[in-house]
């Protein structure tokens, strides 16, 4: 989508984190994903945090039900990770980056 051609390699992770407001769960999710990215995908990721309260129409467009949701747009296959991302192991499995550490 917004990814630049240079980033569209198998190495680049395009991640979108959807949250609703500044709830503890949202903040926890943001902290968690940032940490995981820094630790596992340094320099190979494009993370964007979206607040659905600000852009409610995104919920329909992105088929979002549960919050927080992290969508891994690239590399394919598309994956959705729901929850506050505090289970790091599940996050790594979900993002298919477990084996790379």
């Amino acid at each position, binding site marked *: 989508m917004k990814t630049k051609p240079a980033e569209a390699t198998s190495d680049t992770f395009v991640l979108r984190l959807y949250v609703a407001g500044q709830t503890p*769960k949202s903040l926890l999710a943001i902290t968690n994903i940032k940490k995981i990215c820094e630790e596992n995908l340094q320099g190979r990721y494009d993370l964007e945090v979206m607040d659905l309260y600000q852009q409610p*129409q995104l919920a329909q467009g992105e088929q979002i039900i549960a919050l927080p949701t992290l969508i891994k747009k690239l590399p394919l*296959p598309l*994956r959705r*990770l729901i*929850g506050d991302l505090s289970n790091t192991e*599940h996050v790594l499995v979900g993002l298919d980056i477990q084996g790379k550490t």
Partner: protein
Amino acid sequence: MTKPKLKPAAKPKPLPKARKQLPKVPTGIQGLDEITGGGLPKGRTTLVCGGAGSGKTLLAMEFLVQGALQFDEPGVFMAFEETAEDLTQNVASLGFDLNDLVARKKMVLDFVYIERSEIEETGEYDLEGLFIRLGSAIDSIGAKRVVLDTIESLFAGLPNPLILRAELRRLFRWLKKRGVTAIVTGERGEQTLTRQGLEEYVSDCVIVLDHRVTEQAASRRLRVVKYRGSTHGTNEYPFLIDEDGISVLPVTSLGLQHIASTDRISTGIARLDSMLGGAGYYRGSSVLVSGTAGTGKSSFAACFAEAACRRGERALYFSFEESASQSLRNMRSIGIDLAPWVKKGLLRFQANRPTFAGLEMQLTTMHKAIKDFQPQVVVVDPLSSFIIGGNTIEVKAMLTRLVDLLKTNQITSVFTSLTPSDGGRTQAELALSSLIDSWLLLRDIESGGERNRTMYIMKSRGMAHSNQIREFLLTDHGVELRDVYFGPSGVLTGAARLTQQAQEQAAQLARKQEVERRQLELERKRKALEAQISALRAEFEAQEVETSKAIGQEKAQETQLAQGRADMGLSRQADATANKAKGNLK
């Protein structure tokens, strides 16, 4: 429909009767509003559950469509199972144009896509996304109605049922707070109403749909299991999904409150009218014509239908054994030409096999046809074909509802029923008897090597009626009741009747001749007597003449004698006495 009444703030009684009911939202679905006494609870959530293919989605969809079209209440349809395109296509066959409604901002279709294999749970989550999504959809068109179909899919798509349950509870509270009237659908569970026990969360109104097959005929039923704060019909009501959407049939909800008319209408057979107190059936009554095969039941029914058309009334003829054209042809053979009435639009045939659908379906189609055609007269020919196996109870239930409907609308109905030839009453007839106001029994009488048709009135409520057994003929100008002839073994029919008729005619002739003979004799006697009288008179006259002649002579003689004496006196110069005597004599 519901008037915007105040909520019962302080309930005076624990059971406030239909007086101050909670505000309701009409569904616009035929019949459902009657069962629920005005619709679904306003601003609350209703659970509609049922097995696969029971019509949940359709009911929910019609609720939204009717809301948008009839009541100007826009709606949001959140689908968890079908995509918006599929939904639009599926309901297009029912005449709902969703694309148009969406374009006019009367409806929002939102397909929620959940693919379990794409989802990884990584910790605590909530359904705020769904709330935001639903909230923005509601706000975008100012929706008053919301459908979530089938929200239970979430359980299949998302992990951690505990969170889901808590979130669903929150969702229903949230919907209530938003003030939208919502329908949530759920798949029927093993022990519970829904697979995930949604009924625990949605407790204001629960409607169960059912699609069952009995005797290879499927019928759909609807039942309002629960309706908090309102009275409602509690029975299972059949419903139908056809080209106009859903229609529910709530006939048994009606009480016995129909007005009995004193108006009488002709049976179409003049002499039968006179048997029925001289005026025919009561308007709005139910008539059963039962008899063995080939006794002319349909002909009686056709006569009645034709008479109605002649009066300019509309007649609806439900035929379950013959096609319309077959009926027309057969009736033409006895001089009842129904075709012109069909052409004029006064008579409508609805012919199908009783096995074409379940009883409820039949009833619902009949109900629809009656509502549509608004007839004054209905013929069901024959009723007995509904009885397949031991479903008498169902048939009776169906008939009760049908008769109720007809009576409420002041429609006079004629049912025909085939009875076994051994003369026994069928189960159906026994079951029906209580519903029937006038019962005509047609019978075969076999005697003298022939079979003749007779009829009598088994009962006819509220009127004096003949108790005679009458023979009738199917002539080329309709059904004709014959005169009654009695023989040593009861009513004479057919050839026996003709013989009796001839005998009576002969006897009558003989009597007539006898009378004539006596009159002649009398005349002769009078003439003889008169002759005698005149002879006597002549004799008398002759005597009279003679007698007066004799008297004359006597007198003349006496005068001559006196004259002679006087003359003698004069000549003898007799005394004065003699002169005086002479003067006296003069």
